[in-house]
């Protein structure tokens, strides 16, 4: 009798536990949402970055830019990148309004013509300034733009991480999938593998130099290696400041041409 009661209770507990157990997809999505929430609330950010491009022969060239970002409450972030170097692109600006559920809105300011030109954000796989980073890599990574699947818990360089598989929802993405090592403390990736549309490994990015700014962890160096071409690019942050309060109209297309 006692044994039967025990078995019944055990079965009930196991059934309830099974019903509440997350699928890997549910766990992956939950982790992604938690990470996004943990990284929200910074209001605004100013960045000054230097990008070093290295070709297969080891030759280096440098790109310099600044960017400012404004967080929005109802949708994705707004950002303006201002290119500082090389000299021919100095003063060119790109404005992006990121959206969770539709294509981003983007505008480009061409200083030689004093022209603000709207561009399509659909072709995200294009190379950013000749680097190994694509526009897709550097854009705001909204949770809704991927399907997520937790694979397992791992350790990388002594750091506890979730191993997450991300598949872009956009058919125009240059990737079939991404595998992320997401640090449990930083709530952000420390390594990402990018797979091309054929499913072959295309690039690997490694994130270094995480520092805590106010309540948020921010990376200060990302190295991207293209394993197929043996080229690489390195982004370094020289300045990274959180919580500047930018007025919303700084991020309107009308403001792009203003000095």
């Amino acid at each position, binding site marked *: 009798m006692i044994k039967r009661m025990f078995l019944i209770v055990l079965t009930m507990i196991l059934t309830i536990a099974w019903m509440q157990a997350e699928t890997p997809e549910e766990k992956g999505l939950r982790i992604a949402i938690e990470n996004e929430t943990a990284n929200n609330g910074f209001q605004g950010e100013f960045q000054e970055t230097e990008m070093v491009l290295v070709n297969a022969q080891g030759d280096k060239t440098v790109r310099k830019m600044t960017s400012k970002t404004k967080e929005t409450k109802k949708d994705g972030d707004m950002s303006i990148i201002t290119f500082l170097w*090389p000299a021919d692109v100095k003063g060119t600006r790109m404005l992006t309004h990121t959206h969770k559920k539709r294509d981003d809105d983007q505008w480009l300011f061409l200083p030689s013509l004093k022209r603000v030109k709207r561009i399509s954000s659909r072709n995200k796989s294009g190379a950013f300034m000749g680097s190994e980073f*694509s526009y897709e890599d550097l854009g705001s990574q909204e949770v809704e733009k991927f399907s997520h699947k937790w694979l397992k818990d791992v350790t990388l360089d002594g750091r506890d991480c979730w191993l997450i598989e991300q598949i872009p929802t956009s058919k125009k993405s240059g990737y079939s999938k991404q595998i992320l090592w997401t640090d449990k403390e930083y709530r952000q990736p420390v390594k990402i593998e990018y797979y091309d549309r054929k499913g072959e490994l295309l690039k690997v990015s490694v994130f270094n130099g995480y520092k805590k700014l106010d309540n948020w962890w921010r990376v200060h160096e990302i190295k991207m290696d293209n394993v197929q071409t043996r080229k690489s690019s390195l982004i370094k942050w020289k300045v990274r400041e959180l919580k500047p309060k930018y007025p919303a109209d700084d991020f309107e297309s009308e403001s792009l041409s203003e000095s």
Partner: protein
Amino acid sequence: MKTEKIHTYVPRVLNLFCLMLILFAMTLPAGTLKYKGELAFESRLFQNDHLEETRDGNLALFGRIEMSYRSGAFRSGLRLFGRLDTADGERSLIGIEEAWVGFRKSGWDIKLGAQMLNWSAAEAFHPADMINSRILDSDIESREKLGEVMLSVKKKFSGGSVTVFVMPRYESPKFPSPESRLSFLPAGLEVGDAFWLETDGNISDNRYGLQFGARFSKTLGASDMTLHYIQHQDRSQPVVLLDASAGELRPVYFPVRDMGGTFLRVMGAWILKIEYSYRDFINPDEPVDTGFAGVFRLEQPDHHQFAMGLEYGWSFKNGGEGTVIIEGQGLLGVNKETRARLHPFQRDVLIGYRHAWNDVLSRELLITSIFDIERKREFLFNVSYRQRLSDTWGIRLGFRLVDAPVKQALPVGLEALHKSNQVFMTLTRYF
């Protein structure tokens, strides 16, 4: 007489005041001064037209400097360029594109001085981009501009803005010299100073008068739209008269009301672009005594200018991008002969392709062809290639073919540029 004197002096005082303010502003402490510039070696070689009056080649040194200053809400901007042509002295000039002082705060943006505006939505045809005078000895699809003196007051609101303009001075377009291969006028004929028709029907060479207008812009999701109303001196469609005593041609510009706008919508990898303007010329009621060419009934026909384009882009696996461009422009409300007189691209279609390698050298190739769908055999083909040579040097080279044989006694529209085939190269040092 007193009103006329004030009318003349006020804009000149404003010009001088603005320049002094700009120079003073740049000495102010605790501000941000930015600058950039370029020096270029320009060369172009035309197919020999066997005319002694024209020059088939040009070598020029071009320079541009741009400075901007910001201190709190105070702003100023200065942008100048100069060209020294060793072959065609009349092509040499110093031009002001921008020279203004401004104030920006709480959604208000006020500027006083010369500005260069760009209201384009399309790539080659621009009915809505009519404010600044052009330098006509430059690429026909993308003419260089001269700054327009104005007071502009902009008020921004969520996703848009309204701007009011007052422009007190008429800036003359710069015509090609009699030796230029890009002149729409008969070879060897000098173009003299412009004459301006006023709204009351009087004609003079006085370059000061009231021009005004407003522009509304709004972003709605994946669409951008603008509406404009400008009452100003038209700078693109003069009537050209012969001043026999001086032996030169004189352009007479008309007051016009330009009403129109632009619309642009991104649809995935496609972009739809529309530009429109209705040109309502304010013609004099009576024949005008020009003083130099006799008494004439001067009139320009009202008409619509409409341009529409589609752009489609895609990425390549190596990171490059391809873009196909299809655009068309038409003049409506006037007959075929009048259309041809008013604009070289009166019923034309452009098909183009841009290839950007998106590589370290930022290589880009642009191929365009424009052909007239109304008049037989009018065709313009252009290929240009550009790349970076280093972080500070760049090169642009290409060629252009114009096939538009004269079909009647005198050339009309693009026919004036028939066989002005050219190769060109520009080597630029940026700083």
